[in-house]
């Protein structure tokens, strides 16, 4: 039974059904935004340091904070909160839609009545 049935198992790389496919797609978007921001900001700071030494990093400030402090210490936690809120809003809407869909599927409309 092993391999033949395991091929039917849903997973992150092989989502099954509309609900799971949609959920995995949004998770991939959120994780991409998460990863790009974390690695991107550090690469940005690293390249500034390597290419322009301290001159640019000293001059580039936001609210008096050196740009790398602001990006990592202030903006990234805020970005994580935004990602969480976006994910929750999407999940809330998606769960309402899928519930409505399943109700439409399950409840037989009375004859002559609109769905």
């Amino acid at each position, binding site marked *: 039974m092993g391999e033949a049935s395991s091929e039917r198992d*849903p*997973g992150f790389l092989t989502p*099954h059904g509309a609900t799971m496919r949609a959920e995995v797609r949004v998770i991939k978007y959120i*994780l991409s935004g998460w990863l790009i921001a974390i690695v991107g900001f550090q*690469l940005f700071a690293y390249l500034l340091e390597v290419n322009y030494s301290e001159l640019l990093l000293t001059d580039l400030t936001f*609210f008096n904070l050196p740009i790398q402090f602001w990006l990592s210490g202030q903006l990234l936690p805020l970005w994580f909160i935004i990602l969480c809120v976006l*994910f929750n809003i999407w999940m809330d809407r998606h769960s309402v839609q899928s519930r409505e869909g399943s109700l439409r599927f399950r409840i037989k409309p009375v004859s002559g009545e609109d769905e």
Partner: protein
Amino acid sequence: MAYGMLQLVPIIIVGAMFALFIISGLRNRSNQASQYRFIGSYTGRVGIGAGIACNWMSAASFLGLAGVFYLKGYFAMAYVVGWTGGYVLLLVLMATQIRRFGKFTTPDFVGFRYESDAARTLAALISIVISIIYCVAQFRGIALLVSWLLGIDYIPAVVVGTILFVSYVVVSGALGVVRNLKLQYFVLIITFILPLMLLTRKLGYFWILPQFGYGAAIGELQQQFDFNWSDPFGATTLYEWLALCFTLMFGTAGLPHVLSRFYMVPGIRDARWGVAWGLFFIALIYWSAPAYGVLARLFEARNGISLNMTGADAADMIALSAAGLGGLPLWVVGILAAGGLSAAFSASAGLLMSGSASFSYDLYPRLIRPGVSERDKVVAAKGFFLVLAAIVMLLTFQPWGMIAEIAAFAFAVAGNTIFPAFLLGIWWPRANATGVISGMMAGLCISFAPLFIGNSLPFISQAIPFTSSAFIGAPLVIIIMVCASLLTAPPSAAIRHFIRREVHDCPEN
């Protein structure tokens, strides 16, 4: 800041704060019939968020982070990003699904998902190890604060701190105190941010939002004292930064006492929104913590005090030192100490209770006394709580790093063991008991390798520093789990059907 003498005013403030928590907990008990007891009660999504944040806040957040900033500058941002970014992983990959499994502890989840008592026992042992390591960080914080409050040396302070902590838990338990997590979070955040506002106001900076105001101190350090903060990767490498950051994120999504919050929330939607609120409350602390490290540097520079790079104790107490050096009244330093002590007590209580529950419900009835009654399990849990406290106390006599570094090691262990077990358990139904046992064993080896063989093989401690091993370790453990699972029989059809239908809501094939 004066050491070696009794700090009467701060002691009174600390006592008053703990009395407030106990009285509020007793009122809670009479107002509601809660089964959560000392673990805490909460209502609504904001309440769940406050519970998550309160559960999270520890000596590492309250004291340790400022200390790392003080010593290592921008490198400490890896802690801020790691300890907040992990919640995104937790939310999108685990929070909803864990709730759908309907299990109440990490060993419960592992035992049910992988259908293996051996995997469950191993998960229980790992939970206990993580609790002990994380608690050493808390006990170190408690000892440093007690040492300052009572004017005694570090080692006696460890003993006195342990006695105070155990007494607090026993008294709270005996009185049936139900923790009011919203109140506790509110008090903790006030005790952390109020002194910072007063400090920045005194310096003439933008004090309404001290999280931004401390930028002026960085400028002053640069211009007047030639102290350079604009060199993010000067002392460390980009690899070290990313390795620590990702280790902390994987660990956040794998810490048993963090995961346990999601087993008990009323609904899936509440669990998700609770994470978002919790992250906001946690971020309030992390937006502020760097300021203490920077301001302490500024005050020292103004007073002509040179930086002591080897003074881990001084660095871990830097939040209080900053308040003292800034000339704030003793009662303000006192409320900062009270907040730190409360965070450390609360985190330690949660961790040791989680550890003792793992022992009494997973190890004791399976390995020591099969068929033991529920009453005996409760007695065993209480006894093991004391044993764990004693073990942690002994380890705290000679800790292996600063508060934040010890905590980071606990995160590395969780990231190398529990995180891959949960991740594949939820998202890959083919993962089986052999896979998870091999993976968790490999994760333990990877976590402890830098400590035990790092000296003889320096390459190991450079590639996988003990605080940052999950960056390489977690993907490696996932590969091991996948290979071991594919080479052995798949899990039962029942559990795979459960994952397909109940966890991922997939249609029947």
